[in-house]
Structure formats: structure tokens, C-alpha cells
């Protein structure tokens, strides 16, 4: 990690640091805001945050890797959050994961080559009564079957191809 190879536009962080002063804002909130700006947490951004918040890079990295919300890699245009909570498990979430992996040819945590889709399994989305459930960006899809899941993915891909 050199911290200088990602060339992120660090000026975008100015506002985050300005907001931080006196507001009692902590490292987690700063990282959340940074991720909202860049879509993930590039290495140079982490170094910048370490410097401006007065933390060691190791501590910043420690926090960023502890919480599942933080991403250190770029994600695709469509982020699929597949719920693997208890209710979804009982209602067949594994078969949905298999269908997504086969259709997109990626594994959990990966992004498709064209940068369109990323897959991330999550503990629980709290929509248990619609299980199995997945979220694609802001939209929630419930009562999934493998066939229905593939149909949804193909529909998005078709829309994007136009």
C-alpha cells in the first residue's frame, strides 16, 4: 500500500473535515461520508483521513476493515445485497446465491468484469416475511426463486445494453 497510487480527488473531502470540527464527529462517521462520496474507500483517501483526524493509518485501516459496511474495492454499478438471514436461509437463500453466481459468473464479494454487478451477502435485511430477499441498490426484491432472480438480473442487463 503506497497510498499515492489511486489518485482520488481529495478536495472532495474538504467539506467532511470542515463538518467534523467541534461536532464531536468520530472516525466511523467520517469514513461513512467518505464512502458516500467515492463509492468505496480508496487507499489514498484512508491516508488523508488518518492525517486529518489525527489517527494512525493503522487505526483507520483497523476500523475500516472491522465493519462490513466499508468497502476497500470499487463496486459495480449495481450492488446486489443478498440476504442470508435465518428466515431467508430456511426459505432457500442458498439456491438464490447459486443462481446469481452462475448467472453473473462471480462469487460473493466479486464484481463482474464489465463492472455492472457486485455481489455481497449480508446477515439480515429485516424483510424476513418476504424471504428470500435481495436488494439491488435501493430496490428490494422479495419472495425470490432462482428463476425469478435470473430474470431480474437479465432485465437490468438488457436495460443497460440499450
Amino acid at each position: 500500500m503506497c497510498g499515492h497510487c489511486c489518485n482520488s480527488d481529495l478536495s472532495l473531502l474538504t467539506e467532511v473535515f470542515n463538518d467534523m470540527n467541534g461536532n464531536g464527529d468520530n472516525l466511523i462517521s467520517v469514513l461513512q461520508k467518505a464512502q458516500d462520496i467515492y463509492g468505496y474507500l480508496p487507499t489514498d483517501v484512508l491516508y488523508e483521513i488518518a492525517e486529518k483526524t489525527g489517527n494512525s493509518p493503522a487505526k483507520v485501516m483497523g476500523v475500516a476493515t472491522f465493519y462490513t459496511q466499508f468497502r476497500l474495492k470499487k463496486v459495480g454499478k449495481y450492488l446486489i445485497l443478498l440476504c442470508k438471514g435465518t428466515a431467508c436461509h430456511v426459505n432457500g437463500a442458498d439456491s438464490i446465491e447459486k443462481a446469481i453466481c452462475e448467472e453473473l459468473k462471480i462469487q460473493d464479494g466479486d464484481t463482474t468484469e464489465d463492472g455492472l454487478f457486485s455481489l455481497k451477502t449480508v446477515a439480515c435485511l429485516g424483510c424476513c416475511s418476504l424471504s428470500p430477499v435481495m436488494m439491488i441498490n435501493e430496490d428490494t426484491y422479495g419472495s425470490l426463486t432462482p428463476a425469478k432472480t435470473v430474470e431480474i438480473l437479465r432485465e437490468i442487463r438488457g436495460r443497460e445494453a440499450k
Partner: protein
Amino acid sequence: MRIVIGEGSCGIAAGAGKVHTKLSSYLVNSDIEIGIAGCIGMCFLEPIVDIYDGKKLLKRLVKVKEEDTENIAVSLRNNDFEALKKYEISTEDSVFLEKQTRIALRRCGLIDPESIDAYTSDGGYSALKKALTSMSPEEVIEEIKISGLAGRGGAGFPTWFKWNAARNSEGTEKYLICNADEGDPGAFMDRAVIESDPHALIEGMLIGAYAIGAKNAFVYVRAEYPLAIIRLQKAINEAMEKGFLGNNILGTSFSCFLKIKAGAGAFVCGEETALIESLEGKRGMPRLKPPFPAEKGYENKPSNINNVETFANVAWIIENGGKAFSSMGTENSKGTKVFALTGKIKRGGLVEIPMGLTLREVIYDIGGGIRDDKEFKAVQLGGPSGGCIPKELLDTVIDYKALNATGAIMGSGGMVVMDEGTCMVNMARFFLDFTTKESCGKCVHCRIGTKRMFEILTRITEGNGKDGDIELLEELCDGIRSGALCGLGQTAPNPVLTTIKYFRHEYEAHINEKKCPAGECAALRTYHINEEKCKGCTLCAKKCPVNAISGKVKEAHIIDITKCIKCGQCKEVCRFDAVEIK
């Protein structure tokens, strides 16, 4: 006339937002008002549209689809209620609500969660007024003591005791914290309360802050609940404007400020000391207790932490008196409890019942029993810290003591029902997979012990279980239970211990006979075709990726189990249900 659409997260996921937009467009230029409410808890019937005349509910329309909206709008314009009959909730499904007693959820799904006026006109904030103007903090704590309210986050610790300890703790700067990091997979009670009645949480917290003497309060909400965060922030802003929050609340000397802190996704942060670490911007790793948070919590100042549902009960108790609350329930568990009823259940959703009902009453009378008329096998309570309760114990009453005696716990309220098709070994493996990932890594027993257990459970479900594996699991459980610092580790063995206790035969079948009795573990399945059911349509043979199926057209097919890779595609395509798992 007013129509109200239930728009909690699951309602929206089921299409309530689209129904709302369509209805609005069809009802332009009519005198029918359209509003929203939170979640009524009948998730199995979403999207739900309620029709009111003033405060009176005239009709409840369920499972409303986008394409139904035009019809509904026309009927509403013509006052033709007869035409709405086909969308109306059935008497059978109405039982779901009728059998409940709602305190924490009393306004959920009934009022507009985005309007403080809706809350105050329904009597909201009157309990706060009562507490601030006619009760001392000690009297508030006494009332909570009388009520018998216990922490609804899972541990069931008496709320008054925590409040009292924080109140008596030295120091003038104290903090009140709400734990809304609802991490148990299969639980969504807290989300529903915040999304549907955020002011109930704020009011309960304010009363708590007054009781312990805190000027600053936080709500730690999990990041996976964006709608809850939006609605709570809106509620906080409105409460500030109306003088229910801020300096000199309701003209008294009591001041309190409330802030939201969004969690960043770590199950262990539901543990109170880990939550405090996270609030301070650090990795969420539990602290050694004592000192307890009541002495040294957030920023080393006295702090009190309660769960959302606990706070949601507070205003009701102050308003109606502690005795009214403690008159419900059993000897050792007072009041009501909210459960998120899910899994293989006919009617899934939010259920609030007085303590003392039996599991059977909740699952069968309220939940309607098992879906697709299958056989009930077990119910899982308390998420990764809880356990599975078998059929023989369905008449166990719901109270802290009775549930603990089964080896499960009350937990925060997740109640996942399983049928005959659920493998209990795989269920235990599922929870250990979860705890392995969520263990913060601080304690060796938890970090490595759960990993070893997960590996053993994995090999059992893959048909590689060895003689002595069950005993090894039990030994590990014992070690983790006594060697872990926090609740996550100490309770992590529960799913394994309860499944071994009640379903030992399933473990033995996996290990000794290499069979999964529920037919769920893929590696232990054998597929075969029922000759009588097979019509010889050849669909399965065409679909099979390894050409393991042979047979002539219109004649029964055969699967060569030496070639079969157990992918299950033949079963999926078969239209005659002829492919069976053994």
C-alpha cells in the same frame, strides 16, 4: 374519506410505494385524502391499504397490486364498497391482529410516522408531560420498578435497576443510549417501531433521560435500516421545533438533546460495551465488566443503554401506571413482548403478545400454523444466541424462565419456524457460520472455538462426520461458554447445544448412516425417479448437465447415481413431481 397505505420497509419492498403513486394519480381531483402509515405487522398481506372515515377504519384492503389500483380508485370515487370486497382482508387473516395485545406497537401502522401532529393528537407526549411536571426522577424509576419492565433486547435485565444505577452514579455528565443495532438475523421488531412510530421511541428515551439525569442521548441504529434513520431524523427535527427536545423541554428545567449514530455493520455492536466503543469511533470490541456502563460508559461517563422496544413501552407505563403493565404476564415476566414471526409460517409478521402465552398459541392461533400443510419441526428463538425448541415443547409458556429452561432464550424477538424440510445440523452450522464471521476476535475461545465448531459441523453436513464429533462439539461449547468475555461468545454454543439436545438422532444419522433425514444437505442426498409418476417427457434428461439420466420417450427414466452430481436441476424441471430425494 381518507386512505392510508402501509409504508414500512417491507411494505415498500412488496410494492406499497408503487401502489401509492398509482392511487394518487387515479384519485387526483377527488376529496379523498391519501396518507401513509408505518407497518401494521401483517407482512404476509402487504401491500395494505386502509380506508378510514375520520378515525374509524372502514375497510382494510390487502395484497393490493399496482394493476388493482384503477379499480379501487373508481370504487372509492363511487362509494361502491361492494366492489372492494375481493380485496378485503379475510376473517381468517383478521385473527392475526385480534389475538394480539399491543403496547410497544400500539400506534404502528395506525398513524403517520412522519408527522408529529399525528402523534400528539393521539395522546403522544402526554406521558412526558406527566413525568416532567408531576413526577420526580425517583418516582419515574419507582413506576418502572412496579411495572416489572425488563430489557427487551434479550438479556431481560430489570430496566429500573439500570436506570437507578445510572442515576446514583457519580458525575454530572451522563448519557442515555438506545441500542437499535438490531442484528439478530430474523428479527425486525425495532426497525418496525422506528419506522412506524419514531416519536414513541423519542418520548420513552426522554423519560429515561429525565430519570437518570442525562442531557445527551444517542440512538445507535444499524446502517442496514436507511428508512428508519430517515424517519427518526425527521421526528427528532420536528420534536426540536415543537419544544419536546432541546433546552427547557415543555418549559421545565429539563433539557435533552438526541442524536442518531449510524452503525457500520458489526453484529457484536449489539453488546453494550462494544456499542459504546463503536459510538466513540473505534472498532466495536467489548470491554471487560465491571466497570459497568452505569459507572463508566460512553467517554467514561455514566451511561445507560436500553433497547428500542424497552423504550417504546415506557410512555405507556407512565401514562397507565406500572400496575397496569405488571398485571399482564407471568410471575417472573411482566407485560408484553414483540416477536418477528417468520420462516415456514402461514401468517408471518410482527406479533405482540402478553407474556405467558404458549409457543403453540403464537405459532398456530396467530401465525396460522405451517405453510403448505407441512409438519412443524422446531422454532428458533433468540437468533445466534438462542436455540431451537422442538415439537414436544410447543406448550412452553413464553416467559424468561420457562424459555431459558429449554436451552433457548427469549432473545430480542426473532421467532423462526421450521418444518420437516429443515435440517437441524445445517441450522446449527448456519448460526456458527454467522458467529464465526461476527466474532470480533478479542477472545481466543470465541475466535478460534467457533471456527472449529463451524468446521466440524460443515464436515458432518458433507457426510464426513466422524465418531466422537458430537462429544467434541459439546466439549468446545463448554469451553467457549466459560472462556468468552461477552454475550456473543458465551451464547454462541446455544444453537449447537439445543440441536444436539433435541435432535441428536439427526446428528447421528449424518455421521453414522451418512444420511440427512430432512433431505436438505446436498452431499447426502440421492435423487431417484418415481416410476409411477414419471411420464417420460425427457425434460430432466435434457437438463442434466452430466447425462446421468437415461430413458425412452414416454417411459420411466432412471438416474445413474454413480454419475449424478446432486445439482437438483432434474427436480426443478420435473412437472410431475416424479424426482424424489432419499
